[in-house]
């Protein structure tokens, strides 16, 4: 037995899983994602057993790749043996590419891009796209996918099974789409990554680590795409947006895990490196292309991140950006944001009027942030009696437990004020 070797990189298995599954799927074809996953799983278990005894190899990634490659050759051989009594698998004909070549670094990136396009294929439901992306590209286990998406293992298993079946029956090619359909397919990928990111950022999940994991994975895949398709500025806009939001991630919670409201956040805790990257990517995204919603959202996030403090934020610009966004993507959450920003540009009363009008919007039914905002604004006006029912309503509408805690504190505060009066 060798001496204690170097510590293993965090999530090494998870990262390598994603790379290897993409590589093996390229060898076998999109219909055989499951086979690729099984072989990679087997590779990781082999590594666990071997490294547990012998210590870490010099180059862990290279080691995994070698073992996976050997298992691929075995699988192909075994399949040839079976071919006498079963129909030969499609991949025997398809495995024309030089397998060694496919394991080279730049080819691995290429395989991952193909996998992103396959997972985010428009023929799959968005829910399936996200689950499949997390499972195959990000190396999450089924239980971890279920936790991250607030679902159950059996639901996720069914979803994954159906997605793979659909890929097989429609015989999807494992490739980067041709020029004619590339723009539309890139749009689909961008949307899927955007939703994956939001799943993490806006989740009502209580586990902050899982939330951040989802955001970082979405960011990683988006960077992979943006760097490769640099003629599509939309991807850089999305990447920029993700950087700005992620920069604020840790400041959202205090040391006790309680939510820190945006205006109270300690801006020195915002990640400057990520903000700088956000700015760089935003500049790169300024092409000749039409302005996308990602561009506008990134600009809004930039306004926030670059403002010296909450009060000196350029609310007028942000309001205009939101108006533009509402035109491109009419949706009740954006309407809610517009109404909230009115408190800065026109004052609390005017904002409360706009918020009241939104109570009729079906899209905001049961959305706790509407009554929560109304409650908080009424508190600012010292109308504690009026604020209470809104805060209590928000508490009933399934906030996360951290949000619930904030609401309860506010309710107590109102009650105390009313007692004192």
């Amino acid at each position, binding site marked *: *037995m060798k001496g204690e070797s170097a510590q*293993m990189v965090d*999530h*090494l*298995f*998870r990262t*390598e*899983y994603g790379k290897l599954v993409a590589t093996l799927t390229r060898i076998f074809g999109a219909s055989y994602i499951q086979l690729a996953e099984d072989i990679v*799983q*087997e590779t*990781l*278990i*082999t590594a*666990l*057993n071997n*490294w*547990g*005894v012998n*210590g870490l190899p010099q180059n862990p990634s290279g080691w995994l790749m070698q073992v996976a490659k050997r298992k691929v050759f075995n699988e192909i051989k*075994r399949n040839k*043996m*079976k071919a006498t009594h079963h129909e030969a698998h499609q991949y025997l004909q398809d495995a024309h590419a030089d397998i060694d070549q496919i394991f080279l670094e730049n080819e691995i990136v290429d395989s991952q891009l193909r996998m992103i396009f396959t997972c985010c294929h428009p023929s799959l439901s968005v829910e399936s796209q996200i689950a499949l992306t997390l499972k195959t590209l990000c*190396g*999450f*286990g*089924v*239980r*971890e996918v279920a936790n991250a998406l607030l679902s159950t293992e059996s639901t996720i298993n069914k979803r994954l099974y159906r997605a793979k079946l659909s890929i097989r029956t429609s015989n999807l090619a494992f490739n980067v789409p041709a020029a004619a359909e590339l723009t539309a397919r890139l749009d689909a990928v961008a949307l899927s990554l955007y939703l994956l990111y939001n799943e993490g950022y806006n989740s009502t999940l209580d586990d902050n680590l899982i939330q951040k994991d989802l955001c970082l994975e979405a960011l990683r895949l988006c960077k992979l795409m943006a760097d490769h398709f640099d003629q599509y500025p939309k991807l850089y806009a999305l990447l920029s947006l993700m950087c700005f939001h992620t920069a604020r991630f840790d400041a959202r919670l205090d040391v006790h895990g309680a939510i820190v409201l945006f205006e109270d956040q300690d801006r020195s805790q915002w990640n400057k490196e990520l903000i700088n990257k956000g700015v760089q990517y935003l500049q790169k995204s300024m092409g000749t292309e039409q302005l996308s919603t990602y561009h506008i959202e990134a600009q809004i996030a930039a306004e926030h991140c670059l403002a010296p403090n909450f009060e000196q934020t350029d609310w007028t610009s942000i309001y205009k950006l939101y108006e533009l966004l509402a035109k491109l993507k009419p949706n009740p959450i954006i309407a809610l944001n517009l109404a909230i920003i009115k408190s800065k540009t026109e004052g609390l009363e005017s904002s409360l009027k706009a918020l009241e009008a939104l109570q009729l919007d079906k899209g905001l039914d049961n959305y706790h942030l509407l009554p929560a905002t109304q409650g908080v604004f009424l508190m600012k006006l010292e109308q504690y009696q009026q604020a209470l029912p809104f805060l209590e309503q928000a508490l009933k509408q399934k906030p996360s437990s951290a949000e619930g805690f904030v609401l309860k504190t506010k309710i107590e505060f109102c009650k105390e004020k009313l007692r004192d009066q």
Partner: protein
Amino acid sequence: MQEFLMILKGDGMNHLSPDELQNIMGEYKAWVSTLGEKYLGGQRLEDQGVLIKDKGIPPQTDGPFLESKEIIAGYFLIQAVDLEEATLLAKTSPHLGLYHIELRPIAFPKMT
């Protein structure tokens, strides 16, 4: 000292996520290092192989050949004073919980 074969049965690790597998490695490493000299070797077996029953019967290649809980996942060779000590060692294995362990003494004691 006598040698013992620890046979691991079940498909225990097939459903673990990459993160979970990576986390188990630490326990596994610690176990092997506590065994020290008593650890002689071990390997994981792939689920599929060939079953040859007799010369005249065509080999069976589909596998796994048994119910999944009976799949032989791997083995360890350890040495211990007697079956009692070997049992104690096997009981400390991090594989328990994921696998069943069948402990069998090697029939011929090692000649030294």
